[in-house]
């Protein structure tokens, strides 16, 4: 019997990469992708093989390091949440132009419904835009197997490849049958230096090369069993289901429904296959988790003659994740509730843990905000974002990682005073450093609070690269010594902390307060 293991979708990808002979895993944490890297870190084989498995400071540095590894002929896995790809977009788009030597797979986890994110962007648009092939598994077994195929395809076409999953698959477990592991690649560095040197002369050639590859990939997608029709093509209605949408469809097709379905697990979009399938019917239901990517294509091509049911005509909700219940409704089935949810049941949102250091930070920060109508606390992403909610109400913004410092600077440029920035230690090393440099360069009157709880708490307590030394980083960037303070967020220190903050807010340049006490969960 083959080996069976109970794995999260995230873990299936990690195990798939290990068994495909990966030499390095690179990542910055982000729900729902974090468990991919954590699995590699805890894996015995990875330890024995000494697979690279340390966190990077952000998604861009992670992808660039991986690109160096595949340049050298080895295989590498990079994992991130969807918005992480925005941060890594520059090396991502350009890595399609350079191409790769060893297999390079990006596992990107989208978060429809924004369970723990700022938006619902769909990574399939990125893949299309950069002309990078993308796999979309329906379940954990497929996640495991497609990861191996993604590495194969990456080496065959010499291109980076994405494996896309959404929260529900990332965070659900199933038993997975494992394949025989294969060895890693030997070191074999690139010798043709024009490939990875994207001066216009080379880049133009490479880009034409990429366009040729795209054509071949389109043919591959049309012919591949990765995009497959299930059932007999007959009747008035057909279904096109992508990724996890296919598993929701199967929930009903196994027992109570007999409709043919074209299951999509690979992109570039197999356009001809889709249209040929669709043209057999009067009505097509499109099931996809995320934005209406396939539906838009189908509507553009056949909207005038075919009834297309999906997110754009109201058959499915326009936003939020696909569910088995919305799928049932779209298919005209009933999933009946026999009991109703009691009325007036209060929600239970996440909160800061009792004893959390951030609560004490908000305590003295709140005083400045209360006594000064113009004061604004530009903040960032992490556990401390909960400071937006009552009882704290101590921060005013949260846009993207690192935006606290730069927005405070811009507001100060515009004349706002006092302009405060409130940022966590891991967010600071992710993308706060460069913004602080901007502020130092212009001597902007801002006060930066780095809430150093010695961990990346929000995503479950991963190591924080700030451990290399925040004080030295700040001084090295040019923060003046007399305007760099280390405070301890404790109720007994509140008056002292407030006094320092009040004084620094009046300083006509950059002040940094490192507010330091470990998260109570570590």
């Amino acid at each position, binding site marked *: 019997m083959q080996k*069976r293991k*109970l794995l*999260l979708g995230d873990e299936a990808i990690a195990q798939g990469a290990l068994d495909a002979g990966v030499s390095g895993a690179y990542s910055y944490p982000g*729900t*729902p992708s*974090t*468990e991919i890297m954590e699995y590699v870190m805890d894996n015995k084989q990875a330890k024995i093989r000494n697979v690279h498995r340390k966190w990077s400071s952000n998604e861009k540095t992670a992808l660039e390091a991986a690109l160096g590894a595949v340049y050298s002929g080895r295989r590498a896995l990079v994992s991130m949440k969807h918005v992480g790809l925005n941060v890594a977009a520059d090396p991502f788009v350009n890595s399609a132009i350079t191409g790769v030597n060893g297999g390079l797979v990006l596992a990107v986890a989208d978060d429809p419904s924004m*369970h*723990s994110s700022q938006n619902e962007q769909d990574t399939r648009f990125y893949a299309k835009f950069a002309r990078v092939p993308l796999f979309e598994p329906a*379940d954990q*077994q497929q996640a495991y197997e497609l990861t191996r195929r993604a590495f194969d395809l990456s080496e065959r076409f010499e291109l980076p490849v994405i494996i896309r999953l959404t929260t*529900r*698959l990332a*965070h*659900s*477990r*199933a*038993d997975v049958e494992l394949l025989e592991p294969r060895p890693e690649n030997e070191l074999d560095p690139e010798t043709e230096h024009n490939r990875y040197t994207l001066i216009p002369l080379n880049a133009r050639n490479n880009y034409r090369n990429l366009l040729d590859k795209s054509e071949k990939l389109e043919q591959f997608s049309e012919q591949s069993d990765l995009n497959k029709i299930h059932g007999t093509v007959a009747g008035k209605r057909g279904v096109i289901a992508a990724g996890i949408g296919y*598993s*929701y469809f*199967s*929930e009903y097709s*196994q027992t109570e429904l007999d409709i043919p379905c074209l299951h999509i697990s690979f992109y570039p979009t197999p356009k001809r296959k889709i249209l040929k399938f669709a043209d057999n019917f009067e009505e097509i239901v499109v099931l996809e988790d995320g934005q209406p990517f396939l539906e838009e294509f189908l509507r553009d091509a056949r909207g005038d003659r075919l009834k297309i049911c999906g997110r754009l005509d109201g058959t499915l909700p326009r936003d939020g994740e696909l*569910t*088995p*219940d919305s799928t*049932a409704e779209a298919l005209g089935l009933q*999933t*009946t*509730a*026999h*009991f*109703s*949810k*009691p009325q*007036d*049941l*209060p*929600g*239970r*949102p*996440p*909160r*800061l*843990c009792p004893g959390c250091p951030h609560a004490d930070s908000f305590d003295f920060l709140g005083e400045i905000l209360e006594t000064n109508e113009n004061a604004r606390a530009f903040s960032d992403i992490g*556990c401390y974002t*909960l400071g937006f909610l009552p009882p704290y109400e101590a921060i005013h913004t949260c846009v993207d990682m690192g935006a606290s410092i730069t927005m405070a600077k811009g507001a100060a440029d515009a004349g706002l005073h006092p302009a405060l920035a409130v940022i966590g230690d891991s967010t600071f090393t992710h993308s706060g450093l460069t913004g602080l440099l901007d502020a130092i360069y212009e001597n902007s009157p801002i006060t930066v609070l780095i809430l150093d709880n010695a961990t990346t708490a*929000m*995503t*479950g307590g991963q190591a924080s690269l700030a451990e290399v030394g925040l004080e030295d980083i700040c001084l090295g960037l040019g923060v003046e010594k007399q305007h760099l303070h280390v405070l301890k967020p404790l109720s007994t220190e509140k008056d002292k902390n407030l006094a320092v903050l009040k004084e620094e807010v009046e300083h006509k340049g950059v002040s940094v307060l490192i507010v330091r006490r470990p998260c109570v969960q570590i």
Partner: protein
Amino acid sequence: MNKLNLILAGVGGQGILTLSTILGQTALAEGLHIKQSEVHGMAQRGGAVVSHFRFNDQQPASSLIPRGRADVILSLEPIEGLRYLPWLNENGMFISASSEVKNIPNYPETKQWQKEMNKLPRKLAVDAQKIAKQGKLRKGANIVLLGASSPYLKLREESILEALKKQFSKHGREIVKKNLALFKKGQQLAAS
């Protein structure tokens, strides 16, 4: 055909993930196919947590249970399970801890959730917190409930006990023993 749809509900930190791991390992050992969804990340921080757990002789398709199709709801906190009543099937069993976690300002009156629970045809409330305290394992309420729900889970007792031992063996023999005792206590309550 051996098949089960179970919803586990509670508050972050109550041990839902531990329960689903134990159940997953049990079903795996019995040669069944499993799908279970979990909540990770932000929602664990003292917020509402839910996990769907399904097994079948064949691989279940969806990792989420459709509305009206859960055989059992196992709730580690009374109001948390009630949220998922639309998922319970007609003959479904509702099992809940009776101790409240009041980390929100507008927590309802005890009478109110008791009334809702009493409306259900099949239910069982267990003072799991008290039993865990008596068993000198403050965090063991989830295991008491596992015991109380075991008659409805269609899994063999030996397999559950095996998985329990495995889960806690890294914490030493004493902890394993206490957990097994709490499981038995829960089981007795369900039988009485």
